[in-house]
């Protein structure tokens, strides 16, 4: 949180951007990344960036309105939770500029940035299908909500594409903040024979990693390159460039090239991806996956980009 209430009075020329997050930073690494991206852009382009965390759903609208009242030049928010609030506030303030990351709000003064996570999940699933020796792979998911289908759905499609025989185990933790339970679920899937268990349970992923370390199976992380945590077991990471989304939005704004409308990030735009496939990693590639498989997945990636392979949007 960089203080900004003073700068208002100083009447500095600096442009001011508010990044209003729908929840507290912490549980979801995703928001942390967004915050970092925004701060980075703020520094580079000499823009005052203020990050505001919302305590709950009702607070989002209040924070948006306050940001309008405090006359921020650009107000960025994020996620589906903020959709309703932003629709209201943006409609009422047609002269203000807004942006929303991770979903679409179709208004003339809103720039929407969305991600096609299913494409990355597809690659992860494909890699898992190629790498598995037991023909059983699992995924530990935070909660059973429609949103999470972007991860489970894409993964399953990719898995079936490369390994039709493979069995896919899914378990839900029921919470974003329960690594202990996530770990037990991962252990359970391993005991059923899964040699690869993908983590998709926010903080719970750390529990999944531990389970992998303990029982010697393999796993993957989310959003950023998590292979650094434990390269021996965390062998892949599904990437999502939320930091880039925040960074680019502020950059465009600072440069004066801000435009309303929808920007969608997928494999093609390099907004989502998979370690080793779309982006190199500091950790060496684990032999469990192997370069040969990576090369196959790279080919799949190209097919997705070229449109030869289409990944179903599980939310449609």
């Amino acid at each position, binding site marked *: 949180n960089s*203080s900004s209430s003073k700068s208002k009075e100083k009447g500095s020329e600096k442009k001011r951007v508010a990044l209003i997050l729908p929840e507290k930073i912490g549980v979801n690494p995703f928001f942390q990344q967004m915050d970092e991206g925004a701060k980075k852009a703020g520094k580079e382009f000499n823009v005052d960036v203020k990050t505001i965390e919302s305590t709950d*759903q009702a607070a989002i609208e209040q*924070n948006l309105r306050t940001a309008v009242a405090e006359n921020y030049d650009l107000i960025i928010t994020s996620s589906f*939770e903020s959709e309703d609030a932003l629709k209201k506030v943006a409609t009422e303030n047609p002269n203000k500029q807004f942006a929303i990351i991770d979903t679409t709000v179709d208004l003339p003064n809103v720039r929407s940035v969305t991600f096609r996570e299913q494409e990355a999940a597809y690659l992860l699933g494909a890699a898992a299908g190629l790498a598995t020796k037991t023909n059983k792979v699992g995924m530990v998911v935070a909660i059973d909500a*429609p949103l999470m289908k972007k991860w489970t759905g894409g993964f399953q499609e990719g898995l079936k594409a490369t390994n039709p025989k493979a069995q896919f185990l899914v378990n839900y933790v029921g919470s974003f903040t329960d690594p202990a339970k996530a770990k037990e679920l991962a252990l359970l899937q391993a005991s059923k024979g899964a040699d690869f268990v993908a983590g998709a349970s926010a903080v719970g992923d750390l529990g999944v990693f531990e389970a992998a370390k303990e029982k010697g199976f393999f796993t993957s992380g989310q959003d950023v390159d998590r292979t650094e945590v434990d390269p021996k077991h965390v062998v892949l990471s599904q990437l999502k460039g939320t930091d880039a989304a925040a960074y680019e939005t502020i950059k465009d704004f600072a440069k004066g090239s801000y435009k309303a409308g929808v920007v969608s990030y997928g494999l093609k735009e390099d907004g989502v991806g998979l370690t080793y496939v779309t982006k190199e990693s500091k950790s060496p590639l684990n032999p469990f996956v192997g370069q040969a498989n990576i090369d196959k997945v790279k080919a799949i990636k190209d097919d997705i980009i070229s449109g030869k392979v289409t990944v179903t949007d599980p*939310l449609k």
Partner: protein
Amino acid sequence: MNRLRQQLNALIQPILAIVLGLIVGMAAIQIVHGSIIQTYTEMWNGAFGNFYFVTSTLARATPILLIALGVGFAFRAGVFNLGAEGQLVFGGIAAALTALYLPGPFVVKMIGALLAGIMAGGVWSLLAGWMELKFKVQLVISTLLLNYIATYFASYLVSKPFQDRTGSAALAQTKMLDAHLWLPKLFAGMPLHLGFVFAILFALVLYICFRFTSTGYQISMLGKNPFFASYGGIHKQKIMLLSMFISGALSGLAGTFEIMGTHYRFIDGALTAPSYAWTGLMAALLANSNPIGTIFTSILLAALQTGAMGVERNTDVPLEISSVIQAVIILFISAKFAFKGFKVIKKRRKADGAAV
């Protein structure tokens, strides 16, 4: 006159407590090298700084107040209803689904939704009451368990059969209600809606009920000694079930108002995340279940939350510190010592006065 003074006295304690709480909060702010004055100014501004913030504090107080009235009502009757959360959620989902799918003109939908919300909360609560009477299943446990069941069930409804598949379809939520069904806002552009007026009205009605009516008397007596109540011809089962129903209905109404006045749809988790239920419980207990006192405690607790948001927006003090300050203030308010101390001082003063 005497009563007025009594009620003024009752106010002294929370004020003293807040002061003490803020002093402790200063220590926490010191640890993170924040500015104490700025933090507290922002806290105040966030809660009451301008008209918009006042109305958002009151909007936040609305569900808290309704829940607190409900919990307090049951408490008066001697039953401990820990199920406000489930009742709130059930009321909310019932209202949302009724508003969306009940055929007929808007008036019918509106009234239907309100009734459905009230009934759903009430019946869910009644279920616990019935289990206690019929099978001696302790209310404290059953209401706690029913919370989980209600939230999971509502979550199922909105993530599977009744999920909004228009738009991004990523969230477990219902479709948005038609704008005709939105509760009117009290002031344009301000979050405060008609529900608040009703909540205040209910507080007054309950106050009058407990002070001046036979029904209220019967409820209080049941709460204070159930044996005495049945000896005096008060129908224990009937009053207990009635209290559970009203208690749940008020929580259900809180959910209904949140749906129809704030969210305009049922969103999975949106009613539980702000812990309205626990806050409402605290508001009721802090006010000793007095409906008028509950108005103040609810607004106070809401203000602590909106104030914390103000601190978050405008200072470098981390968000977490506000929850620490909140908890500390609540702890101090809950203590009885300040009130007692005050009484002693007053008595002494009286004695001095007599000597003159």
